C-alpha cells in the first residue's frame, strides 16, 4: 500500500472531485471540484512514468543513455493541463452568464427545465 501511495492518492483525488461536485452548493465550487477531479489524472500519469533514480528526460545536462523517467506521460500531462484550463474558462463563463441572467449561483436554482 505504502509503496504505491501515489496511485492511491490519485484514486483519492478522483473520488474527492466527484464528491465535491455532488455536494456542491455554488456553481464556482462545482467548477473548482472539477479541477480537483482532473488533478487526479496528473498524479496518476506522473506516477506511472516515474522511475526510481531516474532523471528528467532533458539531455542538455545529462548524457544520453542515463536512466530517465518517461517523457511520454509528461507530454500527455501538458495536454491535460491545457484541457483543464480551457474547460475551466468555458465553465466559468457559463457561470458568470447564468448569474447575470438568472441572478443565482446555486445549482439548485438551475432547475428551470425540470421534467
Amino acid at each position, binding site marked *: 500500500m505504502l*509503496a504505491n501511495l501515489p496511485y492511491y492518492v490519485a484514486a483519492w483525488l478522483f*473520488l474527492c472531485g466527484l464528491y465535491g461536485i455532488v455536494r456542491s452548493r455554488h456553481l464556482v465550487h462545482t467548477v473548482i471540484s472539477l479541477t480537483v477531479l482532473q488533478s487526479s489524472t496528473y498524479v496518476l500519469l506522473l506516477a506511472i512514468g516515474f522511475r526510481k533514480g531516474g532523471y528528467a528526460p532533458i539531455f542538455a545536462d545529462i548524457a544520453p543513455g542515463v536512466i530517465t523517467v518517461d517523457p511520454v506521460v509528461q507530454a500527455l500531462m501538458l495536454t491535460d493541463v491545457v484541457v483543464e484550463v480551457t474547460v475551466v474558462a468555458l465553465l466559468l463563463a457559463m457561470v458568470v452568464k447564468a448569474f447575470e441572467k438568472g441572478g443565482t449561483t446555486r445549482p439548485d436554482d438551475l432547475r428551470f427545465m425540470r421534467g
Partner: protein
Amino acid sequence: MTEKRRLLLFFAGAIGVASVYCAGIRNMPPFGHYRGPYGDVIARLAVYERHTTDTVNAITYDYRGFDTLGEEFILFSAVTGVMLLLRPETQERRRRETEGENPESFRDRAALSETVQVFTTGMFGFAVLFGIYIGTHGQLTPGGGFQGGVIIAAAPMLLYVAENTDAFRRILSHPLMEFFEALGAAGYAVVGLVALAFSAPFLTNVLPLGKTGDVFSSGTIAVISACVGVEVGAGFMLVTYEYLREILSREKNTED
C-alpha cells in the same frame, strides 16, 4: 432528490468506483518501475533524429504533434466560447456605441507612485522577454510555446495591478488580438500542410536540422512552438479582457 438521498446514492456508487480503481491499481507495475518501451525508445531517438535535448517537447511538437494540434484548437474553441458567452448583448452594445470609445476622454486613476509604475513597467518588459525566452528554447530546456505564451499573457496583468488601466485596456482590447490568436492556431495547421507540398505526410519536418543545442536546431519544432506561443498568449489575453471588459468600461465611465 434531497441532498441526503443524493449523497447516499453517491456514496453507494463511490464505493464501487473506488473498489474498481483500487483493484486496477493492485495489478499495476509497482510505483517507480516504469517498464517502457514507448518513452525509452523516443528518449533515445529524439536527440539523434530531431536534434532536441528536451525530449518532452520533441514528443509534444513532433512525435505526437497531432495531439497538440487538437489541443491548440481545444483552446481556440474555448476562447471562442468565452467570447460568445460574454459578448455584450445588443442593448449594451448600442449604449456603448452611442457613448463612443474615445481613449482621450478618460484618464487613469491617480497613480500609486512613480516607483511602482517604473518598477511594473520594468517587470512588464522582463515578463515579455522571459516569455519569449521560455517559448523559443523549448526544444533545449524545459519550457516551450505554451508556457511562454501564458507568461506573456500574464505580463499585462502587471499593468492592471499598477492601476495603469489605460495601457492595460489598450493592449487587451486591441482589435488585432483576435487575429493573432487565429493566426497562431492556423499557423500550426499550415506548418503541417507545408509538408504535404513536399509530398511528405502531414506535420513532417521539412526544415533542415541544425547542430543539437542551438536554438534553431530542430526544424519545425521551433516554428510550431512559436505559433503555439502566439495563440496561447493572445487567447489568454482575450479571455482576461472578456471578463474585465465590463468592469473596465465602468471605471472609465465613473471617471468621466
